[in-house]
């Protein structure tokens, strides 16, 4: 049995050493909030934190993670789903299908930890996750709102509506 520290708990698993961390989290520990999207560290759906840094867990063999290192998944980002990013995400109605959003939020959380007041350029550089539904503008709005850089009116970002006459 090997050990991992996941979301503040010591978890045991018997996966082979070359098993990607993603599949240990999903299939050995049962934390399915972290998603498989590409398996080659391209899309970012599998983003988790190791000691606070964002990592694409599909490309990290579990043997490369020490038992002392702290892994955080979307399930462990906040106790009650009330991380400022999660609140901003809800307020801005960010998700569409939702599949990439765990990874997107984890990438954003790592950014804010390192850089509490990111500029647009900082966001561009740090958030390289793929979203096929196209939530990017709301992702950006939610990150800035969570960072206190800007305040949005929630569902009233950037739009013009002309009603039926």
């Amino acid at each position, binding site marked *: 049995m090997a050990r991992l520290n996941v979301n503040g708990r010591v978890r045991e698993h018997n996966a082979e050493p070359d098993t990607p961390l993603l599949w240990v989290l999903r299939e050995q520990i049962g934390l399915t909030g972290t998603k498989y999207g590409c398996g080659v560290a391209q899309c970012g759906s599998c983003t988790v934190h190791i000691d606070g840094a964002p990592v694409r867990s599909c490309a990290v063999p579990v043997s490369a993670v020490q038992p002392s290192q702290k892994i955080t998944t979307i399930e462990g980002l906040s106790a009650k789903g009330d991380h400022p990013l999660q609140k901003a995400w809800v307020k801005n109605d960010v998700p569409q299908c939702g599949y990439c959003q765990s990874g997107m939020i984890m990438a954003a959380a790592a950014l804010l930890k390192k850089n509490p007041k990111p500029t647009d350029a900082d966001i561009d550089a740090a958030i390289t996750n793929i979203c096929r539904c196209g939530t990017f503008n709301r992702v950006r709005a939610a990150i800035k709102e969570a960072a206190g850089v800007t305040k949005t009116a929630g569902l009233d970002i*950037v739009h013009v509506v002309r009603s039926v006459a």
Partner: protein
Amino acid sequence: MSARTKVSSMSTSINRRQFIGTGAAATAAAGGFVFGFPTEASAQGEAPEVNAWVVVQPDEKVVIRIARSEMGQGTLTGLAQMVAEELECDWARVTTEYPTPGQSLARKRVWGNFSTGGSRGIRESHDYVRKGGAAARMMLVQAAADGWKVPAAECTVDTGVIQHAASGRKTSYGKVAVAAARLTPPTEITLKDPKDWKLLGKRLARLDTADKVNGKKVFGADLKLPGLLNATINACPVFGGKLKSFDAAAVEKMPGVKKVLAVGDNAVAVVADTWWHAKKALDALPVEWDFGANAKLQQADFNAVLKAGLDAPEAVVGNSNGDVKAALAGAVRKVEAVYAFPHQNHATMEPMNATAKWTPERCEVWTPTQNGEASLAAAALAAGLPAVQCEVYKIDLGGGFGRRGAVQDWITQTVQIAKQMPGVPVKLLWSREEDMTQGRYHPITQAKLTAGLDAQGNITGLHMRISGQSILAGVAPQNIRDGKDPVVFQGLNNGGGEAMIGYTFPALLVDHAMRNPHVPPGFWRGVNLNQNAVYLESFIDEIAHATQQDPLALRRKLMANHPKHLAVLNAVAARAGWGTPAPDIGGQKVFRGLCVTHGFGSYVAACAEVSVSTEGKLKVHRIVAATDCGYAVNPQQIEAQVEGSFVYGLSAMLYEECTVKDGRIEQRNFDTYPSMRIAEMPRVETIVMPSGGFWGGVGEPTIAVAAPAVLNAIFAATGKRIRELPIKQQSLRA
């Protein structure tokens, strides 16, 4: 198993006709285990079903049934709004659930069509879902009136509270629901006048966001069942090829492997305790394929066939007026251009997957699907069981974009696997590589547009020849009549209300030379509107420049008979500031491009602002987009679809291309099939301008205006016309 396993093709014992014929004998079958789907209520519980659409719980919670599938497009929220509008319930207490396709079969399709594609969710079900809500309201009010022994007409209702003003009495939906459920449903139902809507037209938040931000939402790929095994699969990489043999013994001792098996006549799968174990074993499995004749096919061969089709004498006419031949023959001057649009993969973030459990008596399937009824039909066919002995439990999709609709290949495979392991639930999850190389691809086409001009530069005739692939020929050939695939002409039709050309020409001919490569086609979000808008809207721009006319002015001139097209175009032009120069950004000059079209019942336009550096680097700064979808059910959901459409449409324009080498698709993952990231995303300003009187879709039409608006802006910036998509490696500076 030591020797190589010989593959024999599976036979099926049920056909589609039998499937349809079994409906009347079906019994309500919600059996099996539904583990969390739906979460809030069930049709069989103590909560009374007022009618098929509405369940009211004693605690006043209202469960609204949704037949269409939620895949990110927000239809679940929009459809619930429509029922709730007429129901007059408390929106804060609304939850939703999916009826199962098996229940639909048993109840003679009381929920109508489950198919979720073509931006149809709202526009095709608005009438009957609103009537469902209205009928439930009438029954709830009647039940209260009966209890008070007063005429129902004297009662009023607001947010689920029923009042009889004359006697000062008051009750609530939760209290009268049991009695209401026993009443005969009304036959005369009058829907509200749009001016009295309270929920429709409101910027309501989605109902399904909470679990998408904390990792709790269970997608098909995440499903857990007791005793579940995991599978992954490789189908023959050459379309049309077959599985010859595989060496199971080489991998069956690998960790966790339970079974190595043939699936149909063209695929092999490994079933293991975990997906990772299945994947590792499959990667190591020696397989021999019979690639067949298609293994000789190369991309350049198709391209040549399509090119020849541009001038082929035979073509099927999609739209015509006047005498184009004469107009072109008599033209003082001609403008001509050839464009090309590639195969593309849907690339849903969640790869194809399903879970199935098969016994000789019953087959159950859990899956993300755009069409639960089609999933049930595919499951029954593969299971060799009547549909009444099968059930499908729908799970919200991690993206659909058309891939999880018309063709249900992954369901067939999953059931074929489960059938070889009776009683064991098996989840099949495709790898990304399998998803990329076994797609149902956006059809490949080319187009040649030729315009005749008179001495003043007026267009006297336009010939648009499309050469290339038909989706229907691959997906539903029975719908091709007299050699014509009507879907090919999306956005180019003369009337019809679905996808109409917005210009009037003195003479027009749009025709199609069908050329079908072996790559299987599919409906891809936006479908044929996408490339048709690139072709026509780029060409209109080319004519404008060739005749020294302003692209907006030329369009306006041709749109006199198309006021709704014109209105969305004018709206984006006005907001973008067309006619005044765009301010420089970062020392770069900013240029604009326009596009307008009509598709999926809605009028859409875009004005893009771009800059192109001297090195040829493109930056799309801002896009102003307008949508007239007739009635706007939830403007903020429409905005989300418009924003998202630019990601899908611009990704396609920038990067997406599936090419064939030796009969197979070359691109295998997001490294060779990129999708745009946040850094490339322009600011999007959305004008929702519902003009009333019709219901248009919003999930798809805007995709079509993304690329042409940007391509036209690139031309304005550089003088370089991009006629082949994607832009990819093409230099934007001549």
